[in-house]
């Protein structure tokens, strides 16, 4: 048994299979940011820090005439979203009920996916994480409400990255509203705006709940690093007569190695 303590939960084999499957289905489409950055791991729950390869000079040392420095690391942060599942619903699941109420799980999965997207794209000061958009030295422009203008704006961002020496292909993270505008829009001649943007970028376009506006970033690799300790997992907290209390958790750090490899757009 590991730290998730799953074996202690009053949940049957089929119950766990349903919970895990539901969590995977809800998490996968919403985890946009990690698709656009380098993903290292998972290294497990014991992994605590990312090596930065840098030191801080120390003012003092244990003995006269000896210099001293201390290694700097980026500590991994933990995210956890709690939820509960009714024991009655789980019993019905074991009877073969096809419509078990896992709304609280769905909500927790969405919350933690959004939190991860926000941390990667917009930063998380409390965990010393600078986001892709925040780190970019390029001026952030407004994307606007009219999707017809998106190709020009995105092409401008790609040209800016090329001019900066940042090679492609390029990916695009779109906030919820911006994504909706893109997928529902067709340009003159009937071609989908989504297809046009893909041709400009040469890389993926992702629905990124939590992202404010949009971010264009290089997919050449080596510019943005997501260091995963414990990847998203479902663990057991406690239970009472009514419900079992579970959680989804993960640990990670995120580092921007090349700030100029991204261009952000405000909403």
């Amino acid at each position, binding site marked *: 048994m590991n730290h*998730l303590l799953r074996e202690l939960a009053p949940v049957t084999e089929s119950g766990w299979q349903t919970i895990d499957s539901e969590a*995977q289905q809800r998490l996968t489409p919403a985890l946009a940011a990690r698709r656009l950055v380098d*993903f290292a791991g*998972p290294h497990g729950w014991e992994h605590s820090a990312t090596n930065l390869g840098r030191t801080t000079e120390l003012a003092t040392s244990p003995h006269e005439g000896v210099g001293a420095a201390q290694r700097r690391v980026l500590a991994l942060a933990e995210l956890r979203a709690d939820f509960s599942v009714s024991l009655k619903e789980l019993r019905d699941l074991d009877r073969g009920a096809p419509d078990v109420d896992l709304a609280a799980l769905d909500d927790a999965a969405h919350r933690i996916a959004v939190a991860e997207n926000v941390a990667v794209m917009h930063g998380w000061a409390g965990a010393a994480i600078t986001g892709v958009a925040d780190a970019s030295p390029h001026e952030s422009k407004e994307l606007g409400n009219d999707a017809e203008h998106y190709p020009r704006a995105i092409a401008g961002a790609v040209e800016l990255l090329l001019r900066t020496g940042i090679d492609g292909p390029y990916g695009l993270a779109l906030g919820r509203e911006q994504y909706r505008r893109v997928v529902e829009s067709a340009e003159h001649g009937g071609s989908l705006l989504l297809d046009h943007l893909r041709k400009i970028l040469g890389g993926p376009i992702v*629905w990124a709940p939590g992202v404010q506006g949009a971010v264009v970033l290089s997919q050449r690799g080596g510019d943005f690093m997501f260091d*995963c300790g414990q*990847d998203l997992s479902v663990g057991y907290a406690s239970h009472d007569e009514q419900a079992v209390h579970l959680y989804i958790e993960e640990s990670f750090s995120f580092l921007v190695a090349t700030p100029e490899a991204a261009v952000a757009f405000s909403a």
Partner: protein
Amino acid sequence: MGFDQYHEPPEELSPATRTFARMCASLTEEAEAIGWYEQRLAVETDSEALAIMRDAQGEEFKHFSMDLEFLLRRTPLWREIAKGILFQAGDVVEHGEESEARATGEDDGGGSSPSADGTGSLGIGGQTGSMR
């Protein structure tokens, strides 16, 4: 020359099984040699002799690792179980039990790890290359 690496009559064994048995015997000998050198190094006081024996033990590490890799390549189940144990941080016994259960299909799913990465995660990972 002894033939005691065979537990069954050699003529009844296939060439592949005889090779497998030879490599198992070789693996055992390399492990024994590593242990012998460890003991010698613990008691030796001559620095030159120590350096030579450390170098020799390094050779045995290499030989052992080569033998092991050969055997793992020829034995998929062994390799699958080893993948869940070798070079993993954390509790070795726990990894061993989980890895065996996964590899042999005896994982009862009753709260055990849903993924094959050995961390108990959902196995989502980076999803690199996916496009929406």
